[in-house]
């Protein structure tokens, strides 16, 4: 009696804390649950699926535990069955080898499908926008190879158009993450990898480095602004006409360790991204070469 009331108060406490947590963060701040594009949405779907499928076993396990502990307590007068030699049951064991196998099978199948899908453009029939992303100590540099403009610590993208981010680092490895738009990928020195994202709602999205790069890492925040195509083009024109040039010297200064606010540039040294990748070891990476040739032909 005394015991179970203690259990109850613990449960009540937990429930209270849980409720507090949920209300504390139930708005749009739970960014992973607020997808603003097809990639994040596809990932969220899998999150719901995995939550559901694991809940199917985990919740019964916890309930069963509670029931068994209450039922088979060693106290005088407990008349529940006591079978100290009950230690084998083929049927039971078959069941619990089988259930996880089935769940893992389903999740594995979906994973296979989605992993391949996410490596492609979300809308292959639309021409993508290409943005080259370079993580520096401790800032984000964005190049628009087709628009020939560059920005620091923010990027604008058109809505409803797939964006191919080509990622590299000049400095320690970081990761590019915009939770509302979809999952992250590493930016690695000497490598160029591709990440597809797309926004279908206009808005301003929080982005942050995903892999620790030293004392300035915490400040490596950036914005991704999604706006309709026409607004996007207007912004490009505005940067191209109004912003200063990025000279080679300017670039070298950006590479120096330090934090910065947002900047825009109306031009940048030709081929600087490709050159950086190659200098840092990209020439040994077969796929880098292919990727960059691909990029060059577009620009």
């Amino acid at each position, binding site marked *: 009696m005394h015991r179970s009331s203690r259990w109850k108060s613990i449960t009540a406490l937990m429930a209270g804390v849980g409720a507090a947590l949920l209300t504390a963060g139930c708005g749009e701040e739970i960014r992973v649950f607020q997808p603003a594009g097809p990639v994040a949405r596809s990932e969220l779907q899998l999150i719901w699926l995995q939550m559901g499928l694991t809940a199917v076993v985990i919740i019964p396990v916890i309930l069963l535990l509670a029931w068994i502990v209450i039922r088979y307590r060693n106290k005088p007068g407990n008349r529940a069955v006591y079978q100290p030699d009950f230690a084998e049951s083929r049927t039971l064991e078959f069941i619990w080898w089988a259930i996880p196998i089935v769940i893992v099978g389903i999740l594995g199948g979906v994973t296979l499908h989605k992993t391949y899908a996410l490596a492609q453009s979300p809308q292959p029939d639309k021409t993508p926008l290409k943005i080259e992303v370079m993580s520096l100590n401790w800032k984000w540099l964005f190049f628009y190879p087709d628009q020939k403009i560059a920005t620091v610590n923010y990027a604008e993208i058109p809505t409803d158009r797939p964006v191919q981010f080509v990622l590299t680092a000049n400095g320690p490895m970081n990761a590019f993450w915009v939770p509302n738009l979809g999952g992250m990928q590493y930016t690695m020195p000497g490598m160029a*990898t591709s990440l597809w994202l797309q926004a279908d709602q206009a808005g301003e999205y929080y982005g942050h480095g995903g892999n620790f790069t030293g004392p300035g890492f915490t400040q490596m925040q950036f914005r991704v602004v999604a706006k309709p195509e026409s607004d996007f083009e207007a912004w490009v024109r505005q940067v191209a006409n109004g912003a200063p040039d990025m000279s080679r010297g300017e670039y070298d200064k950006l590479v120096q360790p330090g934090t910065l606010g947002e900047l825009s540039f109306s031009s940048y040294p030709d081929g600087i991204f490709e050159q950086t990748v190659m200098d840092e070891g990209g020439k040994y990476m077969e*796929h880098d070469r292919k990727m960059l040739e691909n990029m060059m032909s577009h620009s």
Partner: protein
Amino acid sequence: MTPRVHANPAFPWSHVIGFALSIVFTLIAFFAVTGHALAHRPLLAVILVLAALQILVQLIFFMHVGQDQKPRYHLWLFGVAMFFFVVFVVSSIWIMTFNTPMS
């Protein structure tokens, strides 16, 4: 079980055979490569197979793995270790070549 190797105490036959085999395998691999006997891929396959045979020669003729006391748990573990050797090497190549499909 009759020991395979020490059947004839008068002369270490098995050691001599093992030695001969290891020299032969080495020379085949060496001259196949320096003489460009085959195209790249088959050549690679041949020398890897020869290396595997060499390892077996060392294990069987010199380390006497056939005649240790049973149960031979050490050989099981050594075998699994060789398995992971291959896994770690091959998967490192697989992972590090980034076979990202390009658009």
